[in-house]
């Protein structure tokens, strides 16, 4: 970036992650809001009907503590819920049950790397709140004559993960979110789906003169629905703010929305209209005591986290830190790699394939590795053919693409093996002659009745043909010549 010289970029991120629970945060309704008809998963509690009361979903609390522990947070012994008051049609009670001054956790950090270099970003807090409903406008939002509200999402548990303003570039911000997403998936609290909004990210971006310690005027950016959008929006905002400052202007503290199609941020509301949320302790829910036993129990159930796995991939498989980072950035990716290696593939080859052609194809189609038809066994077989020299790298690449595109990669793999097999007697006879010429002793052994010798001779034939000889034909021809 050309602008990075005079100003230091300061970014802090607020990530909202829906918690993968069966039922909502404060009632028994299903959290499946994506596939059910509008307002099907609602009840007096999540609709905020008069007289209804919330009851805490213990699993959602557990998931939040789990997340906080994975992010190295402290878990205080006492916590409580608070009401955040504001009016909006998607908020049925006129307040959101959230956490204000006593969240479930604080003071954590997240490590990630940018181009192989390790970075650490502070985590201010991880707290739990309820999601809102969703508005559907009839036509464009500024022209709509009516809006409809779907409350299926209202009351779905939502974690808010707030970072310190420790990020210094769009690259760092993107890597932070990628690593955070991987952790949430690893520990099974969120599915990482940004497109459907199950994982959402807002960024606070400000600039300050290099060397300054005070923070500049911050701008909050919303509506970034992919890693790419996060990166582009922050880059755009850095550019915009630099221009304002360079021109001697002053920045306004405001909220701006990222418009992905137009590639720019648009002002949504300025600080003058900012809400006073009038937070106060939720009187319908008693304060929570988080026992140390419970925290210990949750901690002991945490799986191996990306950072530890990355370390193991470097020391155990001899991968470069960069490759190890990429492979551990998503749990399914890491699982795929380990399974491929377990099947007998050299680690380096498996990593190269996965981070090369495989990732390229997945990224092009925005597909996740677990949805691909290519499974570890297919990749292992393909790599084995290359490693034994049967097929060229170029051939393998072409075949891999065919395998990737087919609903079942099996036939493409079999066809590759078939097409490279030597079955013609003329060519096979040449191999047989060479085998007999170079292994007189074994031929003699066979003639003396040692059946074992034939196996050895077939093996030699396969070796000469680099595995391409049709074993049945080779055996038949060998027998013919030496009996």
């Amino acid at each position, binding site marked *: 970036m050309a602008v990075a010289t005079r100003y230091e970029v300061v970014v802090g991120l607020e990530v909202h992650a829906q918690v993968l629970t069966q039922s909502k945060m404060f009632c028994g309704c299903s959290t499946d809001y994506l596939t059910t008809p509008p307002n099907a998963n609602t009840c007096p509690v999540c609709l905020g009907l008069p007289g209804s009361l919330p009851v805490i979903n213990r699993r959602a609390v557990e998931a939040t503590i789990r997340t906080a522990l994975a992010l190295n947070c402290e878990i205080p012994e006492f916590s409580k819920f608070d009401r955040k008051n504001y009016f909006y049609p998607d908020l049925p009670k*006129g307040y959101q049950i959230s956490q204000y001054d006593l969240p479930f956790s604080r003071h954590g950090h997240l490590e990630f790397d940018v181009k192989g270099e390790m970075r650490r970003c502070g985590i201010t807090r991880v707290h739990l709140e309820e999601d809102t409903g969703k508005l559907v406008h009839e036509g464009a939002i500024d022209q709509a004559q009516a809006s409809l509200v779907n409350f299926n999402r209202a009351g779905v548990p939502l974690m808010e993960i707030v970072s310190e303003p420790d990020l210094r570039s769009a690259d760092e911000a993107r890597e932070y979110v990628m690593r955070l997403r991987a952790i949430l998936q690893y520990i099974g609290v969120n599915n990482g789906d940004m497109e459907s909004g199950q994982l959402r990210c807002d960024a606070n971006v400000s600039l300050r003169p290099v060397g300054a310690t005070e923070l500049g005027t911050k701008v909050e950016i919303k509506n970034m629905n992919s890693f790419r959008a996060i990166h582009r929006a922050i880059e755009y905002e850095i550019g915009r703010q630099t221009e304002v400052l360079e021109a001697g202007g002053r920045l306004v503290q405001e909220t701006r929305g990222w418009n992905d199609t137009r590639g720019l941020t648009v002002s949504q509301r300025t600080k003058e209209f900012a809400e006073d949320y009038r937070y106060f302790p939720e009187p319908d829910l008693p304060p929570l005591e988080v026992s140390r036993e419970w925290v210990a129990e949750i901690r002991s159930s945490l799986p191996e986290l990306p950072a530890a796995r990355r370390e193991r991939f470097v020391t155990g498989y001899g991968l470069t830190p960069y490759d190890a980072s990429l492979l551990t950035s998503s749990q399914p990716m890491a699982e795929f790699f380990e399974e491929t290696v377990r099947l007998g593939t050299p680690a380096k080859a498996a990593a190269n394939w996965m981070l090369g052609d495989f990732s390229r194809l997945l990224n092009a189609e925005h597909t996740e590795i677990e949805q691909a038809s290519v499974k570890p066994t297919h990749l292992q077989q393909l790599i084995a053919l290359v490693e034994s020299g049967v097929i060229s790298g170029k051939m393998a690449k072409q075949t891999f693409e065919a395998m990737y595109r087919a609903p079942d990669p099996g036939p493409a793999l079999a066809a590759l093996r078939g097409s490279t097999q030597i079955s013609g007697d003329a060519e096979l006879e040449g191999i047989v002659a060479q085998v007999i010429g170079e292994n007189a002793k074994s031929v003699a052994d066979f003639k003396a009745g040692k059946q074992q010798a034939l196996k050895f001779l077939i093996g030699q034939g396969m070796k000469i043909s680099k595995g391409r000889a049709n074993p049945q034909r080779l055996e038949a021809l060998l027998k013919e010549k030496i009996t």
Partner: protein
Amino acid sequence: MLVDREISSVELTEAVLGQIDTVGEKTKAYLLVTRELARRQAKDADERLRANRDVRPLTGIPIALKDVLCVQDVVSTAGSKILKGFSPPYSATVVERLEAEGAVFLGKTNCDEFAMGSSNENSGYWPVHNPWALERVPGGSSGGSAAAVASGEAVAALGSDTGGSIRQPAALTGIVGFKPTYGRVSRYGLIAFASSLDQIGPMTRDVVDNAILLQAIAGHDPRDSTSSERPVPDYLSTLRNGVKGMRLGVPKEYFVAGMEPAVEQAIRDAIRLLEQQGASIEEVSLPHSDVALPAYYIIAPAEASSNLARYDGVRYGYQAEGAKNLIEEYMLTRQQGFGAEVKRRIMLGTYALSSGYYDAYYLQAQKVRTLIIEDFKHAFEKVDVLVGATSPTVAFGLGAKTQDPVAMYLNDIITIPANLGNVCGISVPCGLADGLPIGLQLIAPGFREEVALQVAYAFETATDFRKLQSPLMRAAA
């Protein structure tokens, strides 16, 4: 009576419905009379009684429900126009418990809008008239429930008490009204005023009925996280234990300035009578009583301002017409749907919670609340029950205090501490002044409802006050 088949539930219900027909226009106690529902439930109850199948103490008893209680498919408005025509798709836990008992629901009783008031004049529909003197208020906010019981328009009723809303109207209409400890009765389905103070309780003609009704509704409810898991004692088993050897405390702060001499005299007489029954009497101090009222008028409105935010015209209830945009829709709906007192408290509460004022008001009030809890704790180290007046005055005239909100607020000056202090309080009739009832308030420690009932019963049986009937009730007999 019903179990002995002296009278059937249908006969009893018809008699009460008949009384509603006769005096209903005078008291205006009900917002809605559910005649068909009552008749159906009475028939079912008789069936149950005839078959002697699961007969409970309340099987077949006609009961009135304050309009703040949700009853499935029955219009429940909390006395507010903003909920006009609103039929909840579910019933409050207390309603379900009474249904399980086989009780008969007479209808929804009038009350101050969202239970905010001490005279029932803040009802979004119409004021209630005191059965003892129709030009006077019945008290509030559970004025309709009180008037219904006092006029024979119900055998018993449920009310709700946030700062005295059961006890004060009970005192002003000559009935027994009990505010249980916060957490004793589930609030699920109670249309909220102030969540940390609201509590549902029984309003009855005598203490035994009160104990029976409380027994039916008390106990933990998994749908209300603030309801207590403590077991509910058998209130009837200790009712007749008397007051001999009990220590009664008389808080000196409860004889407030402005207390009517006749009220004070009746309370002093009542205390002497309890002493004659074998209780020891000593004066105690609840030093922070004078700041209870201001603290209450921060905490309750603060919670109310948030609780009432949901009435925005988007999903149910009243929706203003002609709004040009969303903000205007909100403003018009709330301007037209809420009454003056509700708006006043929403503004008070919003202000108290605003950034920059929170520490000075809300937080300070919470600290005062802690001091009041401590006051009670210290007093109950010395005595078993506290005795004082329920209301400093007898029923006042309709319109007498409507122009002066603070004078109205002062009605609750000796009932509010029990709500802030997490204790329980019962009001029992203790005499008349110029033909108007006076209430004696008995306050017991948190979750010691049986102690309050025991003293109340001892007092009631030592006097003839329970035989006093309002003119409307006498006319029916």
